[in-house]
């Protein structure tokens, strides 16, 4: 349903994303990995409209997103979280989520029931009236996910959701994301450096290096790919799930 064709982006001399094509399917969890600076976040920025691509096309359910503002894309159902937290510190948890809910309502999608349930699943219910800046880091990461869910998204992109989480937290996050998958049929795109987490969560994985796709496939295929081992995984590591 979300389709990228030949997407490219450069900053001055740096070609951050080059000629990336990929397709995200409804109900599927898609992983995106690659070394630091590979262009993963940039790709998410291009899809969510925070950056405009210099070449290529982007379609959602066959409808072109090119030239559409970030806000419009969010209305169309493209949701994301950020690698560096971008919650609204002076608003309460509930208001943080409301911002997204208003957008969904405007677009004629409602996710109130899902959000209410997600608050519980992501263990935020007890904090709904706290200001966001009073929350702990892990809670803020979860808040970002719930806030994105409140857009009732068609595509949900998570930029390093497990960063800074310990083993148990990461596992809990994985469970919660699996729950999300059961509740909606949105397409999930997950970036993370925690390979165990990615490998167990995703059905397909795309590997970026220096802005370009160097491999695409199931976790097993990817982890056995020679190029991927060279560029990212490194020799002698067995990361297959």
């Amino acid at each position, binding site marked *: 349903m979300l389709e990228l064709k030949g997407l490219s982006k450069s900053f001055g001399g740096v070609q951050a994303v080059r000629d990336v094509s990929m397709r995200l399917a409804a109900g599927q969890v898609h992983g995106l990995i690659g*070394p*630091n*600076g590979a262009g993963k976040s940039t790709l998410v920025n291009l899809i969510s409209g925070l950056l405009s691509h210099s070449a290529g096309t982007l379609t959602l359910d066959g409808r072109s997103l090119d030239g559409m503002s970030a806000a419009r894309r969010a209305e169309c159902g493209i949701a994301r979280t950020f690698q560096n937290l971008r919650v609204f510190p002076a608003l309460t948890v509930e208001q943080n989520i409301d911002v997204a809910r208003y957008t969904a309502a405007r677009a004629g999608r409602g996710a109130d029931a899902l959000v209410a349930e997600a608050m519980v699943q992501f263990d935020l219910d007890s904090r709904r009236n706290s200001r966001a*800046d*009073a929350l*702990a*880091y892990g809670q803020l990461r979860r808040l970002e996910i719930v806030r994105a869910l409140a857009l009732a998204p068609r595509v949900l992109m998570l930029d390093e959701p497990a*960063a*800074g*989480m*310990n*083993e148990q937290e990461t596992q809990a996050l994985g469970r919660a994301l699996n729950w999300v998958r059961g509740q909606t049929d949105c397409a999930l795109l997950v970036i993370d*450096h*925690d390979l165990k987490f990615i490998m167990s969560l995703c059905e397909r994985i795309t590997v970026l290096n220096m802005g370009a796709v160097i491999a695409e496939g199931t976790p097993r295929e990817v982890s056995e790919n020679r190029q991927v081992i060279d560029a990212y995984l490194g020799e*002698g*590591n*067995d990361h297959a799930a």
Partner: protein
Amino acid sequence: MLNVTDLRVYHGPIEAVHGITFQVKPGQCVSLLGPNGAGKTSTLSAITGIARATGTIAFDGTDMGGLPVEARMRRGLAISPEGRRVFANLTVSENLRLGAAMRPEGQAERIARWFDTFPILGERRDQQAGTLSGGEQQMLAIARALMSEPRILLLDEPSLGLAPRIVAQIFAMIETLRQQGMTILLVEQNATQALRLSDYAYLLNNGRIVAEGTAGTLGQSDALMAELTGIG
């Protein structure tokens, strides 16, 4: 030389490091290892005084708590920070001159020496540092830190985002420094390499020290180590 006791580090209301104790002896190279977000950078920030922290940070036996950043650095610390943070709008040689601010005498010779060590930096001496490649920037950051002839060098992920060839070069350089007797506190994700260089290492996870030991013992025995750093 550096004794850190019961250190807790805060970012705003968030406690990122929950009471760790470790030490670096003169002439040693000590590593702090751990996964993303373990609190390694936070620990260094607490030592330099950038981050708010409680506990004691004793350098040469006196607590540096309460001292402003620059006073700490002037006692003989130098850092090559995470993300390199070269002065992007200054040229390479200006970066080095600023690095020598605490020890201006004889800086010209030292700059020349660094240009010998990293000829590529010499070639780019009048180029703005912001236009250097990541690897070049990393070399510059380390050279800049060493321009002040510190008594202890803090290195935060010197291999981050670098091509393997450059990584090898950087590690070789750290090796040389160690042999010359420089005291080093090294933060790394690349545990295998780091352990090879270190006299002693601490493994951090989630703001706590979960294992410690000499490079040999840690590297081989610990299951936790395997889990957190991928060393098998």
